[in-house]
């Protein structure tokens, strides 16, 4: 049997006739050496002479068709997402982006040694500020933290969380523990105090299996199964009372998919009615916590291009504020730029997704 090669299309933009906020643009650290200006002499020497050259894990294998659109590799040979100039051309200009949020999936959460993880996270944050935010006013960024030690993560938020370009904190969904649990509360306390968003993102390198039945064989399974890790995190966040403990905390689910939300709401709300005495601090229907405090990036769409189904899902969500536009550049989710939005949106839904929902959630004015 022959398999048709599947190759991603060329990166192209689209003018929606209005400015947009892109909540998911991936920028990439090209190499550990690129971080040297932001590392102390100790870590520069350590990286130069030891086997450690930065984290080895990635949620986006470089050869997978989903990982990079055609034409996104910079001329200097660096990885897709490593050139500010290309991101200006292929995202900010091409999609009329007024504000774009950079997500850097440098897997510091996969580094077991806590001081190393903290040093690398700090270096990436300083690199983001100096080489991206200071140079391009349309960009904002998600800061990295050494998640395995929440107190160290909180300290990093104290250090750079006040920078005006830093809007949220990267929390890979595959983690060593569910994020609602009390061990994480020092981290969320710092996030809330700095008026940042807790941003749950696709991927994570915890060292533990990412499904409830162990490690899957294929990347395509890992990709599909990631949605259920987001669901586990939602169960934890609501059930543990994280949102009651931190009443102004906001959470963004990035690259989670969202067409699974209606069925998830129905199930969680029903079970809560039967079991709520176990978690008496949960005061509202679980779906109400999600709608009040969480937002979801648009890609991947994971639903057919059928306007009837799209409107059914919106009706079932019973909310038009949950979704925020994203290109997920340089990843491949859609073949033509028109397919970047669900088909058959009303004018009001379209405007909210493209701009208004993210503007009000992140407080962009």
């Amino acid at each position, binding site marked *: 049997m022959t398999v048709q090669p*599947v190759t991603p299309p060329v990166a192209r933009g689209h003018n929606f006739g209005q400015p947009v906020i892109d909540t998911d643009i991936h920028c990439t650290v090209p190499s550990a050496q690129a971080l040297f200006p932001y590392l102390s002499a100790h870590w520069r020497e350590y990286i130069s002479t030891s086997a450690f050259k930065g984290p080895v894990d990635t949620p986006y294998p470089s050869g997978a068709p989903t990982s990079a659109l055609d034409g996104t590799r910079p001329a200097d040979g660096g990885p897709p997402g490593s050139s500010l100039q290309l991101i200006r051309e292929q995202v900010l200009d091409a999609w009329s982006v007024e504000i774009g949020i950079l997500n850097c999936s440098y897997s510091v959460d996969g580094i077991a040694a806590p001081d190393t993880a903290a040093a690398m996270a700090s270096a990436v944050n300083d690199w983001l500020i100096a080489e991206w935010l200071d140079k391009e006013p349309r960009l904002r960024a998600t800061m990295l933290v050494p998640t395995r030690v929440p107190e160290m993560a909180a300290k990093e938020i104290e250090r750079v969380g006040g920078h005006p370009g830093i809007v949220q904190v990267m929390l890979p969904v595959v983690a060593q523990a569910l994020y609602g649990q009390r061990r994480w509360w020092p981290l969320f306390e710092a996030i809330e105090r700095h008026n940042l968003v807790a941003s749950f993102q696709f991927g994570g390198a915890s060292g533990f299996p990412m499904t409830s039945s162990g490690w899957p064989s294929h990347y395509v399974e890992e990709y599909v199964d990631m949605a259920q*890790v987001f669901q586990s995190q939602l169960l934890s966040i609501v059930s543990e009372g994280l949102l009651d403990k931190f009443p102004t905390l906001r959470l963004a689910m990035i690259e989670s998919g969202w067409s699974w939300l209606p069925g998830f709401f*129905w199930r969680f709300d029903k079970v809560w009615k039967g079991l709520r005495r176990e978690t008496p601090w949960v005061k509202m229907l679980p779906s109400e916590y999600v709608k009040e405090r969480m937002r979801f990036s648009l890609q991947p769409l994971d639903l057919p291009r059928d306007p009837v189904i799209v409107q*059914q899902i919106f009706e079932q969500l019973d909310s038009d504020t949950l979704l925020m536009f994203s290109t997920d550049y340089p990843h491949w989710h859609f073949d033509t730029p028109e397919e970047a939005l669900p088909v058959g949106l009303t004018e009001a839904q379209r405007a909210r997704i493209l701009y208004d929902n993210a503007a009000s959630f992140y407080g962009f004015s």
Partner: protein
Amino acid sequence: MVVTLPRSSADRRQTKYPIIDGDIHPTLKSPRALDKYFLTDEWRQYHQSIGGRGFTGTSVPRTYPNAARVDAYPPNGGPAGSDLDFMRLQLLDAWDMEYGILQPLMGAASVRNLEYGAALSSAINEWQIAEWLIPEPRLRSGLVVPYEDGPMSVAEIERRGSYPGFVQLMMAMRTSEPLGRPKYWPIYEAAEARGLPLGIHVGGGGGVPTSGAGWPSYYIEDHTGQSTAFHTQVSSFIFEGIFERFPKLKVVLIEGGFAWVPSLAWRMDAAWSKLRGEVPKLQRKPSEYFAEHFWLTTQPMEEPPVPHQFVQLLEQAPWLQDKLMFATDYPHWDFDAPDACLPDVELPDGFEEKLMVGNARKLYRLPARIERTHA
């Protein structure tokens, strides 16, 4: 909707169609009630002395003892689900059931000593035959197999898989590896050869955390998250090419609900459209394997706040109309009653009868019973 179970044989409930209940839990009358069914003294002694050692530190206590409804405890004082006469009164007779499919939850494959797990499986199967299937002709069950080991499972299928009361294999959903992985293939080969569907019930435990981010703290997370564990198993079965290897294999997903089916199908298709080079064995879209090879029992039925959204679900995955099978989960706390489970909305023509009885008759090859005790 909250329904109180009958406490007297005069309490009969009206139903529009005959009912096949796809998920009934029988339990032991006492902890030692299984001892006499062990096939060897050696394993009987092991069962009495060490018994099942699972994975420690992973328990989230249930909100209700044994997950049971408070009105399902038999008057003779035994655990809920342990008294056949009372089960007849509360369930089989009360709703005039045509058949009920048993799911004994005893964790035979969630023990670390798998040889003991195999001996335990045999004992459970002998207990099912002697105390449930022979005395009550309306009951059928799943053959319990120690599914974490292929050859031992095949041995149990060869030993007892031909007993006519067993209409499927009984496995659990949380396994030590995703179920498409090669270690499980001998089971599928034997099941396919005998035409036995795989009945996969929620629960189990393969020694790995029940979420992609470790263990939850609360039962509500464990319980609500059960359905998400089915997503892993469905994607594993499909992307590993199990239905190309075993084209007649049928899989029944029990007690995981079904509102998640359309979005999982869409997500698998979207991912496969780009990543299919990694899984060249697949000849069709993932959603087509899903529609052809999977059945689902309904309980705990998702309840959209607006009843017609239930119909939208059936429009989004029309094949569900031929694959959903009603189940009560008796005697557990989240029991769905046959006459109170469906939303108050016009359902597609013929769907309710297929859901209540038709789909299960067809899958399990159960003849329609002519005489109904009441109509």
